[in-house]
């Protein structure tokens, strides 16, 4: 008889249970306090997941990894580390969403559903993080993705959001097909879907066919690299991130990506570590391509959300560097980078969402155009300073977390003797600084009412549905007047205080991790140690 160790999956149960509880309570209550109640419950769900992670971290430290449900679920430090990151993102998302719902009338009818989808998506991520069997990994991936597709399309009146959801869905389902076919071939080659048994079969060499295994690894990688948006499987990312509502992009670019990477680390670093020589070259090439394409494409974008989307592709390349090393240090560096990146991506897109809130309501075609960030330092100095900290961290400037994250993946790959990869990564890191410096210059050194950038000309625009390409630059005077008025109104709602608190927390985390990285780094190292 196998034992069902419900306690060990308590963090997953908390996230899932909160989702069920939220949907139940919201359908029973009709009062105007419903939204607040639902928000508080979601935030508590995130905190509860984090608390369960902390409790179990110590138990796992003393008793070792806990296997349950016929060995299909493995709660070890790696799983707990990632579930901790995802739960924190859920908590912060729940806090920032209030200001979003305060200004988007369309969403007021579906606030509950949004919180539920976020919680369910996070549950899927938690399932992936603790999967010890390819079946469970696949189920977790689908739970995570299906909720994310709906979040992307949730702004149902906006053509861009619909398009974003559709693209995300088609690409996601397509990638799932490759992922599954890869799993089927790996199963065919080894005769098991359990990660531990696959690894044993590879060690003993008792598998059926080398061709099946190699084909399986290749297709599996294609599927997961789609999910983490690494080049050449990245084309969907900028479109999806541009069209989807910004607060949900914050969630998708952090929690969803973290889950995709943990699946890569679990399978490549656990089950397939014996055939590292087969997958390392693929990761090597994909990593370089992601860094280069992400950085170069971000340089020519004019939409801040697309800039951040391409920069997230470049970050995916850096995270893959640590995986390429295929050593415990490499995986630890990647996990540490993941935690840092999740916070940076979440906070950056939250700032985009906050800025949208301050300027929506006038005739601006594209609220995320880089021109709308002109002179942000004088209009919203607090937001500008936090954004500056986050951008510097993404560029990898020393007193911030981003520097140490990049440093640790590069040093891991140097230890693994992949010198060219390390050199390319460092060169691209320098080039990447231009992306972020460009945004900093726009925010701090460009007056709000001039048109110094990109040969922008002033012209009034009336139509509301155009792309960033056909968009003519907005009338800056009008925009700043309107925006300040809207911002004041928004401020009066009192909804943005929480938002600013979350952003401050993110900035504080970013600096704290740069100054004193040791505690989180130790957690990441013990997470990497728990790989089979």
């Amino acid at each position, binding site marked *: 008889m196998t034992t069902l160790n419900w306690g060990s999956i308590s963090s997953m149960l908390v996230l899932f249970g909160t989702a069920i509880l939220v949907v139940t309570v919201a359908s029973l209550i009709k009062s105007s306090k419903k939204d607040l109640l639902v928000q508080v419950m979601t935030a508590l769900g995130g905190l509860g997941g984090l608390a369960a992670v902390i409790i179990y971290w110590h138990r796992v430290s003393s008793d070792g990894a806990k296997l349950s449900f016929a060995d299909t679920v493995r709660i070890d430090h790696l799983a707990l580390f990632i579930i901790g990151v995802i739960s924190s993102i859920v908590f912060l998302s729940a806090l920032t969403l209030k200001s979003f719902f305060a200004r988007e009338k369309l969403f007021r009818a579906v606030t509950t559903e949004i919180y539920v989808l976020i919680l369910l998506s996070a549950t899927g991520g938690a399932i992936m993080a603790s999967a010890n069997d*390819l*079946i469970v990994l*696949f*189920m977790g991936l*689908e739970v995570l993705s*299906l909720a994310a*597709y*709906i979040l992307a*399309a949730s702004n*149902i009146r906006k*053509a*861009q959001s*619909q*398009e*974003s*959801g*559709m*693209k995300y*869905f*088609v690409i996601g*389902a*397509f990638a*799932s*097909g*490759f992922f*599954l*076919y890869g*799993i*089927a*071939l790996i*199963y*065919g080659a080894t*005769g*098991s*879907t359990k990660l531990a048994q696959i690894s044993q079969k590879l060690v003993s060499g008792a598998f*059926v066919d080398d061709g099946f295994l190699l084909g399986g690894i290749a297709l599996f990688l294609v599927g997961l690299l789609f999910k983490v948006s690494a080049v050449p499987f990245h084309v969907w990312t*900028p*479109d999806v991130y*541009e*069209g989807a509502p910004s607060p949900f992009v914050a969630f998708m670019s952090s929690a969803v990506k973290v889950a995709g990477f943990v699946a890569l680390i679990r399978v490549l670093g656990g089950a397939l570590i014996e055939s590292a020589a087969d997958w390392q070259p693929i990761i090597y090439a994909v990593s370089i391509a992601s860094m280069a394409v992400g950085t170069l494409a971000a340089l020519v*974008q004019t939409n801040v959300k*697309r800039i951040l989307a391409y920069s997230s592709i470049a970050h995916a390349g850096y995270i893959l560097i640590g995986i390429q090393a295929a050593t415990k240090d490499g995986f630890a560096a990647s996990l540490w980078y993941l935690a840092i990146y999740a916070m940076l991506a979440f906070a950056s897109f939250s700032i985009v969402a906050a800025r949208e809130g301050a300027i929506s309501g006038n005739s601006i075609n594209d609220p995320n155009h880089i021109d709308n960030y002109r002179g942000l330092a004088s209009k919203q100095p607090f937001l500008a300073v936090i954004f500056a900290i986050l951008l510097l961290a993404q560029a990898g400037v020393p007193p911030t977390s981003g520097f140490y994250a990049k440093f640790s993946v590069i040093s891991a790959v140097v230890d693994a003797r992949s010198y060219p990869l390390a050199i390319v990564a460092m060169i691209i890191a320098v080039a990447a600084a231009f992306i972020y410096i460009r945004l900093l210059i726009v925010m701090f050194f460009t007056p709000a009412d001039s048109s110094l950038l990109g040969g922008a000309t002033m012209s009034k625009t009336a139509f509301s*549905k155009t*792309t*960033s*390409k056909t968009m003519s630059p907005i009338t800056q005077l009008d925009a700043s007047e309107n925006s300040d008025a809207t911002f004041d109104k928004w401020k009066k709602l009192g909804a943005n205080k929480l938002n600013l608190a979350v952003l401050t927390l993110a900035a504080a985390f970013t600096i704290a991790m740069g100054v004193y990285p040791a505690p989180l780094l130790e957690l990441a190292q013990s997470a990497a140690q728990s790989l089979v």
Partner: protein
Amino acid sequence: MTVTQFVIASAVLFSIGVYGVLVRRSAVMVLMSVELILNSVNINLVAFGALHDNIAGEVFALFVITVAAAEVGVGLALVLLIFRNRKNINIHEVDLMKG
């Protein structure tokens, strides 16, 4: 017991599915092509389950069928959303965002 025929049949189905996703214009046909990919995986899983004489393959196939149903549910909802807005479901024309 040879699995070669099944693996070949599955590979052919998979290729047809991939071709359909890449080439078909109608979003519904794209969804059907995705289903084809998932079903090719099912054939593989069941065949390998018989080859290795264990039940994991069949169990996995059941999970895949369930997930495929859920996926089509979400997919058709999205198609409906696009159709209401644009009055057609040609996904090659859904290109507001580029670059």
